[in-house]
């Protein structure tokens, strides 16, 4: 492997200048837990690494109606942040399922999303939370819904020279009435790529579902929102029957493939089970 050149800028403007000047061979280096593995096996051969660990993208701050999370926040940081744990429990639960302690201390939420694995745990939670990604380049800033940012396996809307700076996650108007969950099934309890994961953010007021946002991981080219299942429960009181019907609708919208980890049929059943579990929990709470 030709050794890449390495930069460790101190400011985001410096990082952006390097990224735009170096062209397509330049990769931002976040926690390294995915990039270094891909480089080692030769799937990725960047000519330049821009280490973005010292440019201040590691803060979490509430802005009133949203929470802004820097792209370089690690899983451990998310798990230790009171605002995330209290108001974005789906994201905290997802972060707790990424690798083991060593990986959680290194892996960043921005990296997890930019790798665009269909099985990425925090990306799944962020889709259900309707996060916006905030992108910056030397030319300026733009923001996109995360659902538009994630294009396919390993593919995002990130333009050359552009850096994912932060996520802006809207808070629900009355988060006390909202139920959030993230559940995944893998081959074992820790250190495992999801066979299927489901994140849910459901708000119930006066017994009626005001909002239900579901995200399905590892059953499509990117994280999917099962719109028919969401529409079925919207405006309705939850019953066991409805939870079952909506779960079946979500499973029908999943687009799982057969691979070495599981069959598509098994994944489809997992979608139904996990969606039903989320809705039943909402019903009880």
């Amino acid at each position: 492997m030709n050794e890449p050149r390495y930069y460790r800028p101190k400011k985001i403007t410096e990082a952006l200048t390097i990224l735009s000047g170096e062209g397509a061979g330049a990769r931002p280096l976040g926690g390294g837990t995915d990039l270094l593995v891909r480089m080692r096996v030769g799937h990725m051969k960047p000519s330049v690494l821009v280490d973005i660990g010292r440019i201040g993208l590691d803060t979490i701050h509430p802005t009133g109606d949203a929470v802004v999370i820097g792209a370089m926040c690690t899983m451990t940081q998310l798990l230790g942040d009171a605002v995330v744990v209290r108001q974005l429990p789906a994201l905290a639960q997802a972060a707790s399922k990424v690798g083991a302690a060593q990986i959680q201390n290194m892996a960043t939420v921005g990296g997890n999303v930019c790798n665009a694995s269909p099985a990425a745990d925090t990306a799944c939670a962020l889709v259900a939370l309707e996060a916006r990604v905030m992108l910056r380049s030397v030319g300026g800033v733009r923001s996109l819904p995360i659902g538009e940012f994630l294009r396919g396996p390993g593919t995002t809307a990130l333009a050359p020279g552009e850096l994912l700076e932060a996520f802006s996650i809207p808070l629900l108007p009355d988060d006390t009435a909202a139920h959030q969950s993230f559940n995944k099934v893998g081959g074992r309890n820790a250190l495992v790529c999801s066979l299927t994961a489901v994140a849910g953010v459901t708000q119930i007021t006066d017994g009626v579902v005001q909002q239900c946002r579901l995200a399905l991981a590892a059953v499509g080219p990117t994280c999917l929102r099962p719109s028919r299942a969401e529409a079925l429960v919207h405006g309705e009181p939850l019953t066991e029957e409805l939870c079952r019907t909506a779960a079946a609708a979500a499973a029908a919208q999943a687009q799982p493939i057969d691979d070495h980890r599981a069959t598509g049929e098994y994944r489809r059943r997992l979608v139904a089970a996990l969606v039903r579990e989320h809705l039943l929990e909402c019903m009880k709470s």
Partner: protein
Amino acid sequence: MSAPAIKIRITVNGTVHVTDASPTMRLLDFLRNELGLTGAKEGCGGGECGACTVLVDGAPICSCLMVLGSAAERQVTTVEGLGDGAGGLDPVQQAFVEEGAVQCGYCTPGLVMSARALVDSDKELTDEVVRTALAGNICRCTGYKKVVDAVRKVGAAAPDAQATSDHSKEQP
């Protein structure tokens, strides 16, 4: 802007090193090949086995997935940095010996470093907490019962353990 040929300053087990080594060298290779600290091992090389676990600013990380440049200006602790410096064992190491938690030993330095970080945290060392904290360290010899017993034993003797764990309290 050209990539600057910077010297990297890094603190390992309390000693400051200023090195010309490549910033894209893996921290694991720097520790083993440049400093001769061979406690951290390469198992999978992909962040799944934990044999290369060291502490960076007190937190366990996989040294096979961190480049030297990312560890610059930070405090690294390897298994060689544990103990009293005069051959005496760290309480975690002592407990591993007493509980028979070592078989071939390849995974042991990594397990000891993960356990050391856990004992230094303020978590209550229940069976579940210990097992979760050690989930990233794979042992293919023994199973984990004796390892978990050893770590819980250190937790039960917390005041002594705290007194000799100053290495992990260094701040950058």
